[in-house]
């Protein structure tokens, strides 16, 4: 046996790293993880060699603990780890998913059942595909390193404020406060929701199928650095602290020929980056409904490492670029399109360039509004309805509210859906 895919973990500021922290609702027991303190502990655990039965001379084990984890932290011949409680025959005895004493009889074991952990980095190495971790609002200092989920069973880390699933926003989201300059790391098939980060999240080379929703990255280095395919970043915020360097989101930063970056970045806010969103070559990325504020380059395809390899098929749609030197730099792109965007105050809007062989690029503009942009289109073809010298788009309060005033010239002028 092993820890179940159905386990749900709890991390909260008042928890303890020694607590069991996990519960499998399929067992029918009672979830004792949604509390700061353990429900039961003992320092007299014993176990025969290779057995999955643990006994405690002091007893008092609640009858409804099956499904909870017991964390054994020490003991003679005990392997310190999390174990899933399968049965509770009596108040002195539990059976668990695997033997905690594989090589010799165990004694004087110290274990805790129930209660939340206070640290995701204590749990992360024990997670298996399909697990979910709830993070209660509060501050957490450690860096985590999540393993891979699988195609059928993703690993989810979700923040909440007062009760699970309450979808917190703003500062009600839990905060991973570490600012050491290193990164949290993630595996394939992982989901992050409603969390604030103060240092970046990286998946290194070829990790894929990563979803980030309603998260906030206010960091001094990168926001998200993702290696591979099927990346969905939704309704999240990326703000660079300090000098304008690095990328809010960098997708496919390594070996693009083998891990072609694919994904969608939707409804996100980028501020003060050298590159708000940077994607390596051979990409097919959708950028929609995003705001890029005060970045040197709002979007850049391909990234600076792979200027010699073309990017493909990408689209930047329904985005706002404000006070960016370059809205979208597409140095070597084929078949990419910017549409329905507002570019307010920039040196370059859609900046194309010739490829290494000198051929012209193949990037298009369709239904964009450029206001106060020195060079709206550079080596790019207008498919129509592009306002190269548009008037003030009239954001409501410009720097803090990007909705459009009812008198905005951009209302009802972009392309939309047709009518039957």
């Amino acid at each position, binding site marked *: 046996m092993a820890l179940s895919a159905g386990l749900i973990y709890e991390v909260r500021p008042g928890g303890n790293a020694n607590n069991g922290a996990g519960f499998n609702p399929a067992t029918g027991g009672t979830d004792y993880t949604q509390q700061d303190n353990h429900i039961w502990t003992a320092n007299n655990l014993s176990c025969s060699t290779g057995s999955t039965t643990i006994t405690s001379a002091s007893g008092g084990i609640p009858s409804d603990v099956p499904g909870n984890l017991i964390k054994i932290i020490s003991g003679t011949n005990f392997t310190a780890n999390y174990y899933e409680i399968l049965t509770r025959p009596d108040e002195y005895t539990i059976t668990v998913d695997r033997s905690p004493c594989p090589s010799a009889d165990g004694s004087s074991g110290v274990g805790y059942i129930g209660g939340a952990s206070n640290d995701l980095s204590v749990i992360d190495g024990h997670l298996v595909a399909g697990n979910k971790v709830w993070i209660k609002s509060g501050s957490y200092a450690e860096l985590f390193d999540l393993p891979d989920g699988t*195609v*059928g*069973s993703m690993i989810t880390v979700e923040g909440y404020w007062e009760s699970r*699933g309450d979808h917190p*926003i*703003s500062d009600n989201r839990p905060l991973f406060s570490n600012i050491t300059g290193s990164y949290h790391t993630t595996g394939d*098939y992982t989901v992050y929701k409603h969390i604030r980060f103060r240092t970046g999240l990286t998946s290194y080379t070829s990790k894929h199928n990563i979803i980030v929703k*309603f998260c*906030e990255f206010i960091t001094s280095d990168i926001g998200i650095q993702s290696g591979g*395919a*099927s990346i*969905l970043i*939704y*309704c*999240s*915020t990326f*703000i660079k602290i300090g000098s304008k360097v690095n990328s809010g989101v960098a997708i496919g930063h390594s070996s693009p020929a083998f891990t*072609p970056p*694919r994904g*969608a970045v*939707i*409804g*996100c*806010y980028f*501020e003060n980056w050298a590159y708000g969103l940077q994607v390596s070559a*051979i990409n*097919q990325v*959708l950028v*929609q*409904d*995003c*705001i890029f504020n005060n970045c040197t380059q709002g979007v850049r395809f391909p990234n600076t490492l792979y200027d010699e390899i*073309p990017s*493909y*098929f990408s*689209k930047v*749609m329904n985005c706002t670029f404000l006070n960016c030197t370059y809205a979208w730099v597409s140095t070597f792109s*084929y*078949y990419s399109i910017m*549409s329905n965007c*507002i570019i307010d105050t920039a040196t370059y809007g859609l900046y194309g360039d010739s490829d290494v062989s000198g051929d012209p690029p*193949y990037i*298009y503009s*369709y*239904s964009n509004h450029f206001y106060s942009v020195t060079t709206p289109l550079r080596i790019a073809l*207008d*498919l*129509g*309805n592009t306002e190269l010298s548009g008037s003030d788009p009239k954001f409501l309060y410009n720097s803090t509210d990007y*909705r*459009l005033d009812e008198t905005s010239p*951009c209302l*009802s002028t*972009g*392309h*939309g*859906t*047709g*009518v*039957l």
Partner: protein
Amino acid sequence: MSIHYSTNWEVRPGGSANNGGGFAALTANSVDHSQQDNEQLHITDGVHAAGSATLTSVIGGFTSDLEGNVGKVVSGTGFTTGYYQILTVVDSNTLIMDRSLGAGAGSNGNIYIGGGTNSVSTILSVMVGRNIAWIKSGSYTGITMSITTGNLHFRGYKTTHGDVPTGNDRPSLTFSSTNYLYAQVSLFTISHVIIIGAGSYGIRMDGTGCVVCNCSIRVTRASGNIYGIYINAGSGTSGGGDSIFNCDFTLSTADNTYGVYDLNGNADVIGCVFDGLTRAIYRTYATYNRSSNTIGNIIANCTNGIVFGSAIANYALIKDNVFYNNSNYAVWSASNPPGSLWVLNNIFLSNEVGIRCDYSSPTNVPHQVDYNCFYDNDTDCVNISKDDYNITLDPKFTDPAGGDFSLQSDSPCLKGLRPIGFYTGEFMDVQSQ
């Protein structure tokens, strides 16, 4: 030399097949004489030496503003008929063209300079990569368009270049017999036109990175399957990737109708209308880490809406669409995925099934079904689960049965379903442009 890559061609109902039809601003003197029905200058006494690109005429009348305009040699002894671009006006009787006018000496050259042509079919063979053909509003019949030169662009207009006509203000191209617009090469774009075909396809695209924008695709074939836009762009990481914006499809047949038939599985379909088809969008052959975006479409009264006939290799994003009254499945993924299916911010109203996945393994594809409105569907989801933010409320379209999918002022879909990131992470109502 040859026709310059920056040449713009002019097609207009009142033009003539004899006219030059093209112009590029090659010099500071250049003035566009193609945007007119009649030729700017006609000579019948053209002369050139053997193999020479220098054209002389006693009639003459050449002025420097002709530089960059195209002349069409329609006849002449020793002339190779065709389109030639004026590089230099030497004097009122002498032109230097872009290339030799004939291998031997030529005389009695009958040449029309300037003026628009009257059919896009006549200029296809002379267009070179990056050329744009502007097609003025009007009706063009007997069209054949088999495009074998890459990077050609076709734009409809009503009154002035770039005015982006809609509806019947767009020029209509009626294809002859069973012909259809066949783009065999890459980087083809066409926009702001009406395509009327009688064969199997409205448009067939075999190249990569093609764009169809603001076109009405109408096919009138009485029987046999019909494909509004048929995509077969080969294989490899860089194959396909076509984009279809703001198109509508009227396809009549007794058999099956497909709005977009995407054999490459990675075309983006954005802002289109599909009404009463067998399958609005059919995608298959989605290998090579391909992905697709289907955004902002209206898919109504079809049998099936979006169908994935083979595995989603990377991701498939379905976002901001309206699915209404589709009699079978609005979204149907009919094969096992290694990739992700993301269904976000759509409205599913009165469909037999909203989303159906036919996976044998695994049953839990990495998916996101979120921020959608499901209402009055017989079944919302089959073999795929919803995420947190979906609602089940009447979206309150103004008149969906009548084809008006605007939202009433009290629609629950006006706010909240389409959040946008902000530094506070709050939901923001995004006003469409």
